[in-house]
């Protein structure tokens, strides 16, 4: 278990961008240069390269992954995650550094790579398998399993161009899922397909991981990373920002993606918001809440000038849009004056939110012409997390609550037999965390 599967030392990858734009390397240009100044062209080849705009997609990355580890790689778009996977998959070469990989590797950077539209499902299974590195004998042996997993049996001899996108993805994942590598590298492939199939795919990947194989998994889906991995690595600007236990790294990632505490934004009239904090009902600062808990937004400000009768507006926004707001323009109450250092807070009682990620926008407007004195969208964010089973929910798709709406209020089903079924988050949690 302690043997390393992948060891990366000082890895760097540089891209030169803007080459196509200037057509510096276009053939006409090259030919022209060669004909006009043959000698100086040869001499200048090296220096000409330097003019290109350089961009380091990865910089000084060192990493050790042990055999049997399941590692999640997270980070914003353009953080270098995919570049790392491309280098590990040998699609592109590193500019600097050294990698040592121990074991048969299979990478899945895209679902359905090499599928041919004109070929039938059966033919594509063989073709795709070969492209992913399986031998003909191996594919033949696993053929039935693949077909069964993909649930497309009756369309096996139909060209894939006639498939629905769901069928296409199912077939493609099925082939890839039956690779049996010692090291599996997976990039964002779960972003496609319907919920039920995604669940199946996650299950299959979990199986691979439990089989003692090494898995490297890139995803934007923080929940999937949490569910699958023990260890996570956070990338930003081509560097490793955090590496360790999945919970703490994911927490770090979520905190980083909001500006959060310690913000020093200066608005008009010199107003400074020194701190924006979220607290739970007990008054503890946190970024994690349970459904039905109280949420306190606390604003610490410093106003060098005298601001009379300002309006405050707080908006809580989820993945599906705005959820609720506290708006002094509606309330009809406001502080008389902001002067010097001070604090204002707003307590939202028992938030009716489903497990998801939320962000808070804050704006402060002037009394007279209602122009903004201070505004920040997504100023701070928090997650609502909990096992909904503790709230009396019993459906099969609880893990996909995040794809439902954000807000849920109590409701009652009246069933055909006259039974009443009340549902709601207000039920006291048995053991909230």
């Amino acid at each position: 278990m302690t043997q390393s599967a992948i060891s990366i030392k000082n890895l760097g990858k540089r891209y030169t961008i803007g080459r196509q734009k200037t057509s510096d390397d276009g053939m006409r240009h090259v030919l022209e240069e060669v004909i006009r100044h043959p000698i100086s062209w040869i001499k200048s080849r090296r220096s000409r390269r330097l003019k290109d705009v350089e961009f380091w997609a990865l910089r000084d990355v060192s990493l050790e992954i042990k055999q049997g580890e399941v590692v999640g790689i997270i980070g914003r778009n353009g953080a270098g995650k995919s570049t790392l996977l491309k280098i590990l998959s040998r699609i592109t070469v590193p500019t600097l550094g050294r990698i040592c990989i121990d074991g048969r590797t299979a990478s899945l950077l895209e679902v359905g790579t090499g599928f041919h539209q004109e070929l039938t499902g059966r033919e594509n299974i063989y073709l795709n398998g070969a492209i992913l590195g399986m031998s003909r004998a191996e594919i033949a042996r696993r053929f039935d399993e693949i077909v069964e997993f993909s649930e497309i049996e009756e369309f096996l001899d139909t060209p894939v161009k006639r498939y629905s996108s769901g069928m296409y993805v199912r077939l493609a994942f099925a082939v890839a899922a039956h690779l049996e590598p010692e090291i599996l590298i997976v990039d964002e492939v779960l972003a496609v397909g319907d919920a039920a199939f995604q669940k199946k795919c996650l299950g299959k990947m979990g199986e691979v991981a439990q089989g003692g194989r090494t898995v490297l998994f890139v995803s934007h889906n923080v929940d999937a990373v949490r569910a699958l991995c023990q260890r996570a690595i956070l990338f930003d600007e081509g560097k490793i920002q955090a590496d360790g236990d999945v919970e703490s790294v994911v927490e770090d990632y979520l905190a980083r993606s909001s500006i959060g505490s310690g913000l020093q934004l200066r608005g008009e009239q010199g107003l400074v918001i020194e701190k924006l904090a979220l607290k739970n009902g007990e008054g503890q600062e946190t970024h994690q809440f349970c459904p039905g808990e109280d949420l306190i937004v606390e604003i610490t400000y410093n106003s060098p000038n005298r601001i009379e009768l300002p309006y405050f507006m707080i908006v809580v926004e989820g993945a599906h849009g705005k959820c609720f707001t506290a708006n002094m323009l509606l309330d009809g109450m406001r502080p008389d004056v902001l002067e010097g250092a001070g604090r204002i807070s707003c307590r939202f009682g028992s938030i009716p939110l489903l497990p998801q990620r939320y962000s808070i926008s804050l704006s402060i407007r002037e009394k007279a012409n209602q122009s903004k004195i201070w505004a920040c969208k997504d100023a701070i964010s928090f997650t609502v997390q909990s096992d909904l089973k503790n709230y009396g929910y019993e459906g099969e798709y609880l893990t996909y609550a995040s794809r439902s709406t954000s807000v849920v209020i109590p409701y009652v089903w009246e069933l055909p037999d006259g039974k009443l079924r009340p549902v709601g988050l207000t039920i006291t949690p048995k053991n909230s965390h």
Partner: protein
Amino acid sequence: MPQLIIEAGRAERQYWRDLWRYRELFYFLAWRDLLVRYKQTFIGVSWSLIRPLLTMAVLTFVFGKLGRMPSGGVPYPLLVFSGMLPWQFFSTAIAETGNSLVSNSALISKVYFPRLIIAGSSVITSLVDLFITGVFLVVLMLWYRYVPPTTILLLPLFVLLAIVASLAFGIWIAALMVEYRDFRFIVPFIVQFGLYLSPVGFQSAIVPSRYQLLYSINPMVGIIDGFRWCIFGTRSKIFPLALAVCVLEVVAVLITGIVYFRKTERTFADVI
């Protein structure tokens, strides 16, 4: 499973072993191209016969009937068709190989395998066409009641030479095409002019002997003459010097092609 080491600025040591390991992919890609080729066409495989047949008819008319070129006692259509065989193979092979990397760019940017496999498998597709037209040559010989001499047994050697030549030029074009799409326009020109610059519609013997060496710079001269010599024996002349030039040229182009391909291959995924 041995360790894999990826190091900046170092050529991969495992390349040639990988090429062997992925040999089945070579077969699968060729198989895919063949399967796809005539899907949703009405007359299917017949297309690989109709093209050379029509070309043969036109060239026989232009060079044989209008131009009254000598044929060395061989039926003119047979003469033309024996030249068409290697030419058609070579021209489609370099065109397909040349385009192969660009048209498979989705694969190149998402999966690793030695890229030479893509280029190589494209030659196979054209090779199948060569066999189909080859069968038709036999039909044509029966029609003219022509019995070939024993030199026909050497034909596989020249087929091999034609394959190597297509691969050599093909991988050069393929690698260049990745960065310079200009070749998308250049290749059809080569194919178009090559038909007339190579001895397809006529015998290379009609070229004045002082230009013979210059003429044999075109590698297809040696190959087509070789084909004809195998099929017609002494009735078709072969110039040993031209053949030597051809072989040397093909080997040189192949070696430099592989070197260039390997050098640029590392950045294909970034450039394509």
